[in-house]
């Protein structure tokens, strides 16, 4: 085992590395953001079009045709919030899968902290979710949802999803370099998570005997709490929804465990990424 030694490295080398990591991640995220709407007239509006269009379809089918949400107050607002949050999760976790391979030329020709890549994806997803959530909040107000002090929970809910998604993203991205089957596998898993999380329905519709197991899924837990905090204060909070409160510990372990595992695997693979691409 050996390494490259750079002499005259001053004491603030570490902080310089951290600064460079942030700067680069920021520049990459902003560039991606600019390019996303490159050449389109409506630009940012398109980023709203997708969740709102999906919402429209789901609302029509589940609420109007299937009459699923008749006893769910502000069902439309809930669906919209859930879609936006799940999209945020998918953008980080799913978007990370091919992130390293897609930036092959950068990774092979420039030395930079490899963590820049997942970080830039997280930042980009945050830009998106931030701008979309503004529109969703306006929609909620128009829909008659009264602003609540619990709305300040939103950043924490987003944060919990972020930690979970970033962990999965780092894990998937570094594994994809070696095993290309990660991509189709993750497609299926993400699809399963979409239906396995309360997006088209609400968690209280899940029979009580399954609910504790159901809420082990961190996305389900976050969305359940979101319903309580953001949409309907009468809906059960996550602590009320779960039968045995300690079961929530499992959820927390999954969130932070996947982050720790993802970070560990990523950092372990990082020095070899360039040659394995």
């Amino acid at each position, binding site marked *: 085992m050996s390494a490259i030694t750079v002499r005259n490295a001053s004491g603030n080398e570490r902080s310089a590395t951290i600064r460079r990591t942030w700067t680069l991640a920021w520049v990459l995220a902003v560039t991606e953001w600019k390019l996303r709407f490159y050449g389109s007239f409506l630009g940012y509006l398109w980023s709203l079009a997708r969740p709102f269009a999906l919402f429209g379809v789901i609302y029509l089918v589940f609420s109007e045709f299937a009459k699923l949400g008749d006893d769910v107050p502000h069902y439309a607002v809930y669906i919209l919030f859930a879609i936006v949050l799940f999209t945020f999760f998918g953008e980080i976790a799913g978007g990370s899968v091919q992130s390293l391979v897609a930036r092959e030329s950068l990774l092979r020709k420039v*030395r930079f902290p490899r963590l820049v890549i997942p970080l830039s994806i997280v930042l980009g997803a945050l830009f998106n979710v931030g701008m979309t959530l503004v529109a969703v909040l306006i929609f909620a107000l128009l829909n008659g949802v009264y602003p609540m002090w619990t709305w300040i929970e939103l950043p924490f809910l987003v944060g919990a999803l972020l930690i979970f998604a970033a962990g999965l993203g780092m894990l998937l991205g570094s594994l994809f370099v070696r095993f290309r089957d990660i991509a189709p596998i993750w497609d299926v898993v993400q699809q399963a998570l979409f239906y396995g999380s309360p997006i088209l329905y609400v968690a209280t519709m899940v029979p009580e005997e399954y609910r504790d197991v159901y809420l082990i899924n961190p996305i389900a837990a976050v969305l359940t709490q979101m319903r309580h905090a953001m949409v309907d204060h009468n809906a059960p909070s996550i602590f009320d929804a779960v039968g045995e409160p300690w079961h929530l510990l499992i959820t927390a372990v999954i969130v932070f465990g996947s982050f720790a595992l993802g970070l560990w695997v990523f950092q372990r693979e990082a020095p070899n990424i360039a040659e394995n691409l």
Partner: protein
Amino acid sequence: MPGKDSAAASTGHPAVVIDSVSKTFRLPHQRYSTLKERALHPFRSRVFDELKAVQDISVQIAPGEFFGIVGRNGSGKSTLLKCLAGIYRVDTGSITIDGRLSPFIELGVGFNMDLTARENVIINATMLGLTPKQARERFDDIIAFAGLEEFIDLKLKNYSSGMAVRLAFSIGIEVDADVLLVDEVLAVGDAAFQHKCYQQFERLKSEGKTIIFVTHDMSAVERFCDRAMLVEKGKMVTLGAPREVARAYNQLNFAGVVHEAVEERRHGDRKSAEITRTWFENESWQHVSTLSQGEFCFGLFEVKFLEDMQDPIVGWALHTQSGQTVMAASSQFERGETGAFKAGETVVVKIGFSFRFSAGQYSLSPVVARAGNAADIVDEREHAATLLVFATRSTGGLVDLDQVLEIKRA
């Protein structure tokens, strides 16, 4: 050539120390093994091909030195550069760098065709290690050096390739580093811009920056490098003055070339004597099949006498690949009397000259004839030996003689 190692000694410690560095790639036979395969055969060890890209290379580079790494495709020179840049991890050995190391090995990395030059400069400069603030401060200098003031808000996809390269180079030289790594860069831009680039190299050199660059271009090596290293199959073959290394590189390159077989034709009755061997030697009397232009060269052949002969005529002709005779040498021109030879005797005829002809393939046709007015050929072997000659410059002329150039005002 003055000893460049003394430069390292005079300033204390070298800028870069590469100490017995090796790098091996493990290439699985099937590149992308699937999970299914692994799941079905969990204990089957996968078969790897080992590619020893860099093997035990050690070299020290002095501060302010312009160091060239040359080698053929796949010789491991770029791998070595990537190890230096910290992009690849070395397997064994160590690399010590004194000072700040530029983080990139190629110009224009991360250029995005859909963004304007202005945006690309900031992005690229940040990738290369500047802070966005520094990048904005130096923006005007970068654009001015590239000479692209009128095009800063043009999208990069509308740039010509030459303009994009100019932009990339201009950003590259703004990077704050003591040791720069460059992979193949000089073969771009128009003549005026190349001249500017050369001046920049001189400036960087005079500022004491160390530049390590990888190239195929031997004229660039001779022009810029203080020292160079030839890498072949992952190993360092030659380390020394650029001229020496360029020559070694050419030799290596042409050694692998299979000489085009020229059909040998034979004339004469072969009653009195026979030519048994024909070959070339260089100035140190080594048997060679390649030669560097300007070197001293011998064309030799062995004659076995079958009968006694008095003053036989011996000589040869040198032909180009197209069959043109560029030179002929004969005992007839020089001395006429060659002496008496007994049957059964074997002699070697050796004619030396300074090789001033242009690069290419040459063949030698030795001849033995009886003395007399009419050429009475005993044995002549056309194109019996071939020689490949390379040069570090190509003039396009048939010969390249020492020349004097003078410009006088009228």
